């Protein structure tokens, strides 16, 4: 799989998997991700996930 491959729009994962991934990322990175202005499409590729998490996370450490 490449970084630009679609995850949600290609049906590989669903929005619930995204929510579980957000919870895991918060736990592992020690950050809080503000989800107020996010949509599942913001996590559609690995590239977008990195960009979105960088933009929406606030360090809680």
């Amino acid at each position, binding site marked *: 799989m490449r970084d630009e491959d679609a995850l949600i729009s290609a*049906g590989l994962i669903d*929005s619930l998997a995204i*929510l*579980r991934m957000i*919870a895991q990322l918060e736990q592992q990175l020690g950050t809080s991700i503000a989800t*107020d*202005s*996010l949509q*599942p*499409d913001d996590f559609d590729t690995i590239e977008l996930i990195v960009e979105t998490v960088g933009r929406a996370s606030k360090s809680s450490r």
Partner: protein
Amino acid sequence: MAFNSYTYLVFLPVAVYVFWQLPKSWRPAYLLIVGAAYYTTWTSSFVILPLSLAVLVYVLSQLILAGSKPARAWLRIGIALVLLNLGFFKYRVFLLDFLSLAASSLGSSPFDVTSSLAAPVGISFYSFACIAYLIDTAQGRVGKPSFPSLSAFLYFWPNLIAGPIVRARELIPQLRFDKKFEFHFLVGGVDRFIWGLVQKNVFANSLAVWVDEGFQPGRTVSTLDAWFLAVAFGLQIYFDFSGYTYMAIGSAQLVGIKLPENFRFPYHASNPSDFWSRWHMTLTRWIRDYLFFPVNARFRGAPVPLYLSLIGIMSLVGLWHGAGWPFIIWGALHGLFMVCFRVFETYHQGREICPAAQKFWTIFWRAFTLVAVTGAWVAFRAHDVPQACTIWKSMFLTFSSGGGFAPRFYMATLLLVLLCAGEPYLVGRLQKVDAAQRERQFLPLPARITTRFLLYCGGLLLFMIFSQRGVQFIYSQF
């Protein structure tokens, strides 16, 4: 003017021909006029309603972007106003009826709730488009709004009446019409349109005659007939809505616009959640982006809020379809099916399952989804809850033999079941090779033109033969 009417078959080529003759700068305004004219043929009294909503959404978008008050406050006001408008037209009678019932159960005299004001056609669809536009503006997903482009977006006629529910960010950039005419717009659009006509007039309308007869109030049906009726309605609504969507996508393609797909072989779903990723996909996407994700993001997908939200949100999806308890029950049932699947999935997460058990559960969830979705269609189609309960009783509790319909009904239903079963394999095989390349491989140019011409004539002939059964599009009533 329904897509499967003779009037539309005259309107469409004329509208498309004039469109391509006009200078590019005139095309947005022209399509706005065409959209308003098309909407007038459905509901002349409410032709300015989408325009009024466009004004409201435009002003609020400006306020959201101006930042004079927190964007969230303007967003809430905007959503509330759009919902109030929708509620007034679509749910007023249902709500008053409910209040009247509550009042009479408390000893007060019930009040008159009859109303002659019908809901404007397509209101559920363009209201959702407005809400999505406001949220996307607040989240910075759409640029600075322009009133003409927003109006053209809301009045774009192919998806005005019954979707697909298009996002502003995928349609507005296309409404600049900076494309030159390409032959595949014409061929692809007509292919889509004719196949949609056949789905609607030949498949859906044929079944509609028997389904209407079977769901007549007071009629009792045997177990066999109850199952056949439920399956037949599932097929009718699929071909009705899929046919409509094909015609909408085809009409848009004729003016060089690409609309999103709405169906992906829904009856081949592997579980209840998968069904909704294949059925009315643009509604599912709307619900996912603007309801399911924000609600569950707060709880990071924790089980109990997830299960409650699934039932609550799917009940609202039912209510969106129609102001009545059978629709709400239909939606709630789908929520319940999804909860069952999610509980199973959570229980098995991280556990080792042997290949035989995995195979069993795969088959089980496919079968469960088919039976559950078919059973739930009864609530969607029934006139009221008692009628749905009577049919469910025949389907699941009491067993009586005998068929009360003409043999053609059972044959037609079984044939369409076979068509649905084979659909992904047929389409999959065709999609392996690019359509144009495939034709070039097998046929010389004159033969290709003749074949296509004959197919179009065949499709139109079928449309004419079956056009006597003037059955309204099911989703145009929502």
